């Protein structure tokens, strides 16, 4: 009986192997991270592949020994004598202390080597980007050609891209991370990399997106719990060819100098420009219609509103999120259309009565400019 069981096991294992081969590569792929998109990511992926191979080998050997012992050494009704009472063997102990020591020493050395290449910084990176992670959004600012000063608009504010970082593919980007509030983490799965954004401390690193990935967009998101809006704190990395990137950056610089408000680029400025538009954000209610809108858990409580055409109306806006900034902007048509109303940004818990000037009938969007990718709704004026 003991002799046949392992054979039967072998047959089952062979069947399982065939089944695995049929379900194919997708299962095996799921044991690996996504294809790396940066030079540093490729190094990390190579290290992962080695660690994975060794881990899989140890797993199958030890798990196999356990399964073998369970099948081979099960107690049989005829077992009346005690099995041999083996207390140990010093030579074996020494062997199985040395073997894992050698394996982990090897793993340590190769991971240290990879660490050095991943952490290496270039003395003159082509682009300097400053990432600002704030509850619960990202904005990206660029240093000018001198590598020192931020690109600024005429009002002295740095030009700031909400939620999207544009980088040249095939060139070294030096990113520095800043947080004005709590700890966040910059994480792009396809970079196989993350780094914490720690308030009171500047973390920096270099990365280079593969030249072949120009035109690609990579999803990233905050990886360190930062509060109720953590799950929506995402961003994108757009890779352009260096020529496209230079043109794009030049355009940002000229735009910043020429345009009084960042609305033309569809990019709301960062917080701190309360009442920038001609609309007053407070004052006696002069309108007949008042719409209620509440922001809670970094979401609006309504995804559509209706207002009368060609007459003033009010929005009673409540921000119920503790220590979190929200506002209401109204855009023509889509959430990235022209701004027709810019409400004061308030920190919850708080509320405001926004007085909105008459709007012609049509389709509008209301957006929280602090969270332009997640807090969006439609406003129908008729």
């Amino acid at each position, binding site marked *: 009986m003991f002799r046949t069981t392992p054979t039967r096991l072998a047959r089952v294992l062979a069947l399982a192997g065939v089944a695995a081969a049929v379900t194919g590569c997708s299962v095996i792929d*799921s044991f690996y*991270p*996504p294809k790396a998109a940066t030079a540093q990511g490729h*190094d*990390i992926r190579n*290290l*992962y592949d080695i*660690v994975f191979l060794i*881990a899989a080998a140890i*797993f199958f050997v*030890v*798990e196999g*020994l*356990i399964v073998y*012992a*369970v099948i081979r*050494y099960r*107690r049989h009704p005829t*077992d009346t004598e*005690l*099995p*041999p*009472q*083996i*207390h*140990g063997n010093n030579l074996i102990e020494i062997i*199985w202390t040395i073997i*894992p*020591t050698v394996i*982990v020493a090897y*793993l*340590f050395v*190769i*991971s*240290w080597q*990879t*660490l050095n290449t*991943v952490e290496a910084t270039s003395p003159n990176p082509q682009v300097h980007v400053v990432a600002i992670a704030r509850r619960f959004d990202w904005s990206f600012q660029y240093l000018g050609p001198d590598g020192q000063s931020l690109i600024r608009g005429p009002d002295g504010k740095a030009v700031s891209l909400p939620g999207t970082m544009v980088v040249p593919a095939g060139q070294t980007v030096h990113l520095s991370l800043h947080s004005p509030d709590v*700890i966040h983490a910059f*994480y792009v799965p396809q970079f196989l990399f*993350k*780094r*914490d954004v*720690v*308030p*009171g*401390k500047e*973390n920096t690193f270099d990365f280079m997106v593969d030249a072949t990935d120009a035109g690609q967009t990579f*999803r990233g998101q905050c*990886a*360190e*719990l*930062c*509060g*109720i809006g*953590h*799950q929506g704190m995402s961003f994108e990395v757009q890779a352009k060819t260096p020529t496209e990137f230079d043109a794009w950056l030049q355009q940002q610089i000229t735009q910043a100098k020429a345009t009084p408000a960042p609305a033309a680029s569809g990019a709301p400025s960062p917080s701190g420009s309360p009442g920038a538009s001609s609309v007053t954000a407070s004052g006696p209610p002069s309108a007949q219609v008042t719409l209620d809108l509440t922001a*809670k*858990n*970094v979401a609006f409580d309504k995804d559509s509103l209706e207002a009368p055409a060609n007459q003033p109306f009010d929005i009673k806006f409540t921000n119920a999120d503790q220590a979190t900034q929200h506002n209401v902007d109204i855009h023509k048509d889509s959430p990235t259309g022209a701004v027709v109303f810019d409400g004061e940004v308030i920190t919850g818990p708080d509320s405001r009565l926004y007085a909105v000037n008459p709007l012609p009938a049509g389709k509008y969007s209301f957006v929280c400019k602090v969270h332009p990718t997640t807090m969006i709704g439609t406003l129908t004026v008729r």
Partner: protein
Amino acid sequence: MATTALHPAVPAYRSGLYEWITTTDHKKIGILYVVNSLLFFFLAGLLALGVRAELAQPKIQFFAPDVYNQLFTMHGTVMIFLFIIPILAGFANYVVPLQIGAPDMAFPRINALSFWMLPLGGILMFTGFFTGGAAAEGWTGYSPLAQRAYSGTGTDLWAVGLILIGTSSILGAVNFLTTIFKMRAPGLTMFRLPILVWTVLVTSVLVLMATPVFTSALIMLFIDRNYGGHFFDPATGGNAILWQNVFWFYSHPAVYVMVLPAMGMVSEILPVFSRKPLFGYKAFVFATAGIGALGFSVWAHHMFTTGSVFLPFFSLMTFLIAVPTGVKMFNWVATLFRGQLIFSTPMLFALGFLTMFLIGGINGAFSAAVPVDFALHDTYWVVAHLHYVLFGGSVFGMFAGLYYWFPKMTGRLLDETLGKIHFVLMFVGFNLTFFPMHMLGLMGMPRRVADYSAAAGWSELNLLATIGGFTIATSMLPFLWNVMISLRNGEPAGDDPWEANTLEWATSSPPPPYNFDHLPEIRSERPLFDLRHGRAGNHA
């Protein structure tokens, strides 16, 4: 004095609430620990079901982020501080004095005090749910998120609850160390101690050295929040990374506090059900001490992505700790070899521990390789890893111990069929829940998110994990039913139902107050085996 003649004046287990509240008997206190911990286990399990229900599909269905963040924070905190650590302390409380032939713990009243601080701390923490929200910063309570500006009263209750629970641990550790060093029966030298006692000894040293650090960090946090301290908040000149250093200086050794006693239990159970001695007893002792010592030099591997730690040192120490752990694994496997394995429920759970803890050890090595950790840190990979260690390891070990010592505690055996159903459901459910999390982490799903995009491709694996979670919950039903029927009608256990090796099986089930009428001679680490077989088997 090799023998003690004590005739119990009162029955072993007086019923009556008053007796349970005032008892200083280590066995009753041990049972109180176990029951209290299981109650918190079920509560924290319900919180986890809430988490899994929310994550089953993209979008918010059941819990908005404000509540969701409380769910996983309290799940983690309660599972660690009110279930795993205390239930292992509970087993140690019950078993250690018996295994060393002592009448009780060294300080019985302090023992009772240590226990009663636990429910108090737990209730305080749960009060948060009724005072505007429990703690919601994750069980790690990172500052500045845990500061007054970002979190409510729940965090104060969380901190105070943990200070109480920490104090309970420290008192317990002093008690265990004194008991083990001063109250061993004649003949029970250090190298004849059961492995469980060794693991409790090393665990107590860890608790004694690490817990005060955490307790003082919690007091600093409380001062920051309530009295304008400036310890951990950069906005007021504090240092956010300082919290992480002191937190992990405790919380990494705490992982060994949660795993070592479970390893000890498995090291008791495997030899009994293999009918062989533990392979490499001394190697085991040295490996346990080695894990304890190295355990203090690896805390910053939780902080590789902060940009604030010396990476190569903590990477090397983290890799090295795999060596003593590996030695233990090989010794367990060697214990099985050439044995006569009996698959009673305690043995099944012990084998579950071996197979699952192995995965928890291997997937931990990925994070020791710093650059790989840059990819995996704070993703679901880490959630998978920690559950393979703490659930696949500690919880499987804990259930092995529960099925093993239940007959000693109650005088009745648990039903084997229900026990096997429990094991199979839990084993399958556990792997369904946590194995897919490896893939989710590799795909880039961060931990501690209430929602994810349907476009991310994470939906199927999350649904699978949720199904697994509810399977684990289902496996508790046959277990509870088993306990209920066995307490009333279970088969009487007798003194030694398993043909075991250690002293607790030399007295009645349940043992009388002060434990022993008579102690057998102790000439090896298996006094009861010697009693049954003479010294026949002890040299091979």
